[in-house]
């Protein structure tokens, strides 16, 4: 078996002896590491911790809404819980989730590089994320926050909760995001190996590239907005406060000028992940590579022009409403193209229902609903009815949770063997995926109906006519909570007891599967050769190593 040694597949026994996890030891070797893989793992730990925290807030919110009247939280506590749930999940989990944790780990290896272009900047961006997270925890400890994650003025100017702490935290997290974006843009421009032209890049890299563009261009606007808000609270400047001649709606323009593109910061990397998963687990070349790549860029660019659709009821002029409604429809087209291309990729494939593919299929189902319900909110007449109701809550959870977080978990299960060197239990993996799917739909589907029937969002209590929807929704959230506990258990179990992962358990052909699991410190001993990363004809399953290997190699060894 070991007669051939090539850059393609380092000898597994050797690789396990020296990988990025065992390269150096000690806490300090992690805290001061410049290795993108370790930084990615540290991000992952932080993001999963934040996801747990945000999840606890979510369960508290749903428990309060289980029945009419006060259950476990007072009105003020409820307002803090939904605010913290939104702020933690948005700023600490979904925005950095795929790019900073998984992207950091995978991007340089996909490029056949040793690291990102600026490893020190990468570590700095991780510490900025940590600092931002500490600010959020400090807010939690010091009176909380009750503005909603959107910090709308003038409420955010008046409330006596810790608005400055939270906005300062979001400001710092924004810089973390900008630095990661810059690093990725430069890495993709500069570090691609010979032979990997733009249109030979894995689509995940296209998605990260489009994401990075938005991060670099849009996030500074958030930073400025939050600084203005802090200035307004501290010095009463009169930018947003109507009492001082300011305009509270101006804040909404500033905020959504960032936060709508930020929605695409969240969903684009997820779409990139799905493009990889669908192709690998169907053993089919991705269909319509260029359309998918261009649609990522199109979404990134269109995303800048649609922020006004959050403000159809704010009193902005009818002309603005018309323009923003029309422009917003343009975003739906590239998303539709991607979904059809994924389906075409599956056509006549050999479809494996391994856990990552289960998440990819769940993504297509849930993102389908999330995307299509977006049409109701883009259309002016129907948005008037649905704006700020549970319909919107359900819509963005279908996109952000059903889309981004499902893709995140798909990607986590996909790259878990590569990151940890261990395989998790497929049986438990699929079971958890199924429970997430059931729990998710039980939680959020009734919210569409409650919302179109008029149930406003951010309500600590509700009228009796909405009781049924809320009860079912809360039960669904408990099912999801159970699913995530199961996931945590089998993933932790795999770290200690899991089967050792082979180099290429899924039969993928992007470069990260060309090095051992876990990868060595330097990723590759020599520059790997680059082919078509969606061509699986050269790979076949090898029962002895439980791994996919090049056909030529088994031909030689047998």
């Amino acid at each position, binding site marked *: 078996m070991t007669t051939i040694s090539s850059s393609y597949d380092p000898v597994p026994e050797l690789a396990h002896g020296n990988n990025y996890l065992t390269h150096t030891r000690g806490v300090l070797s992690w805290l001061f590491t410049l290795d993108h893989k370790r930084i990615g793992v540290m991000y992952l730990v932080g993001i999963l911790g934040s996801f747990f925290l945000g999840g606890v807030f979510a369960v508290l919110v749903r428990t309060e809404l289980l029945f009419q009247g006060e259950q476990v939280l007072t009105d003020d506590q409820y307002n803090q819980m939904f605010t913290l749930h939104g702020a933690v999940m948005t700023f600490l989990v979904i925005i950095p989730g795929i790019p900073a944790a998984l992207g950091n780990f995978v991007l340089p290896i996909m490029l056949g590089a040793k690291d990102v272009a600026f490893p020190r900047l990468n570590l700095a961006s991780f510490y900025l994320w940590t600092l931002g997270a500490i600010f959020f925890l400090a807010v939690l400890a010091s009176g909380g926050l009750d503005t909603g994650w959107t910090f709308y003025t003038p409420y955010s100017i008046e409330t006596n909760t810790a608005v400055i702490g939270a906005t300062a935290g979001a400001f710092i997290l924004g810089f973390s995001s900008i630095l990661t974006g810059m690093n990725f843009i430069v890495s993709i421009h500069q570090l691609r190996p010979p032979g990997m032209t733009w249109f030979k890049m894995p689509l995940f890299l296209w998605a990260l590239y489009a994401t990075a563009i938005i991060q670099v261009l849009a996030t500074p606007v958030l930073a400025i907005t939050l600084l203005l808000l802090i200035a307004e609270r501290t010095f009463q400047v009169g930018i947003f406060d109507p009492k001082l001649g300011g305009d509270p709606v101006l804040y909404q323009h500033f905020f959504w000028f960032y936060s709508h593109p930020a929605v695409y910061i969240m969903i684009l990397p997820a779409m990139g992940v799905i493009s990889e998963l669908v192709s690998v687990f169907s053993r089919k070349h991705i269909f319509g590579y260029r359309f998918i790549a261009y649609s990522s860029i199109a979404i990134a660019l269109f995303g800048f022009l649609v922020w006004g659709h959050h403000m159809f009821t704010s009193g902005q002029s009818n002309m603005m409403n018309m323009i923003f409604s029309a422009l917003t429809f343009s975003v739906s087209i590239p998303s539709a193209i991607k979904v059809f291309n994924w389906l075409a990729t*599956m*056509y006549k494939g050999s479809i*494996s229902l391994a856990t990552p593919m289960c998440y990819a*299929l769940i993504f297509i189902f849930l993102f389908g609903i999330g995307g299509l319900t977006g049409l109701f909110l883009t259309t002016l007449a129907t948005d*008037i009815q649905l704006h700020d109701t549970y319909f919107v809550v359900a819509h963005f959870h279908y996109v952000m949770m059903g889309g981004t977080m499902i893709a995140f978990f798909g990607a986590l299960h996909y790259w878990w063997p590569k990151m940890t060197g261990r395989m998790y239990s497929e049986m438990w993996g699929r079971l958890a995926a199924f429970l997430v799917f059931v729990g998710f739909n039980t939680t959020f589907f009734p919210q569409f*109906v409650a919302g*179109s029937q008029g149930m406003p969002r951010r309500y600590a209590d509700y009228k009796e006519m909405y009781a049924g929807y809320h009860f079912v929704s809360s039960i669904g959230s408990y099912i999801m909570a159970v699913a995530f506990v199961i996931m945590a258990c089998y993933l932790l179990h795999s770290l200690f007891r899991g089967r050792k992962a082979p180099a290429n358990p899924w039969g993928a052909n992007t470069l990260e599967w060309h090095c051992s699991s876990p990868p060595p410190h330097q990723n590759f001993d020599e520059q790997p050769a680059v082919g078509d990363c969606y061509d699986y004809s050269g790979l076949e399953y090898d029962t002895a190593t439980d791994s996919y290997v090049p056909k030529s190699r088994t031909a030689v060894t047998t």
Partner: protein
Amino acid sequence: MAIDEFAESMSLASAPSPSASFWLPPQGSTVAQGVDSVFYYIFWISLFFFALIVVLMVWFVFRYRRRPGHEAQQTATHSIGLELTWTIIPVIIVCTMFYKGFASFMDMAVPPANAYEIEVVGQKWSWNFIYPNGYIDSELHVPVDRDILLTMSSEDVIHSFFIPAFRVKKDVVPGRFTKLWFRATNPGEFLVFCTEYCGTQHSDMTTTCYVHPVGEFEKWLAKASNFLDQMTPAEGGKLLYQRRGCTQCHSVDGISGIGPSFKNLFGKSHLMTDGSTVTVDENYIRESILNPQKLIVAGYEAVMPTYAGRLTDREISAIIAYIKSITEGYSGDESVPEESSAPANEEAVGDKPGANANEGRQTNDE
């Protein structure tokens, strides 16, 4: 009178029953039907495409499942014709959605001329509706089949005015006026929500819109506007307490809310945040209403908005009378002679405007 009531009940009985559906609440205004048809237009197209996606996905997963002897068959890696097809078809479809939605939106965005105007003021956490004659109510009363134009503003933060059955919603923004119009098609009562998060009791910032049958609205307004003439000051004060936003923070059962309870308040001594002690008398109550930030009872936040210019002296006196009336052991004070007046008490209570609203409610339920 009996004939009038009979006619009223007849007109309600013959009103067409509003149509609610699984997705949408009953249609209560002229724009509702247009909005609903756009909703279902998008709904059926979305359902078709969603079914298409899911059926294809499930079929492919089943048909091409990985199994021994089954190999992936490499098909074309792209097809410009196919991809342009599923680019152009969605483009055409969303263009039709945009157009339908825009046309229907313009119907609700442009107020008709000669509408009946009502001023709306949002504040944490109640609504005030100011009718053309100056009468203020915390509930919205409108005539059926008449264009109503609401001119809305906010006392504090952003609120949003939403009547689900009418399919209308507009933010209520401090520092500017926003306008919203509708024409109710069915008598009855309809929920009004605040849909822009506005703090602690956002979810209690709800009220009711009463749609009166033809001819009833004017009668209601005339009666409601004169309520202080029809009852004792204490009863008038109670109505003001219920309608002008006091209930949101001040209870009458002795339990402290955001502000001190009104129960047994009169004559009580309070420690203030500035360290002084104040005995609650007429002047203190008056000052607390007109300049609420001046003296704050220890243990409470300075959150009450001022009512200067929004309550007349007569109304403030009525509220003081009401607080006295729910203070146990308060036996009357020579400085407030009107306290002991009102021989026609019973009659006035029976005739209060709230009772009228209740009538409408009951008839409508039938």
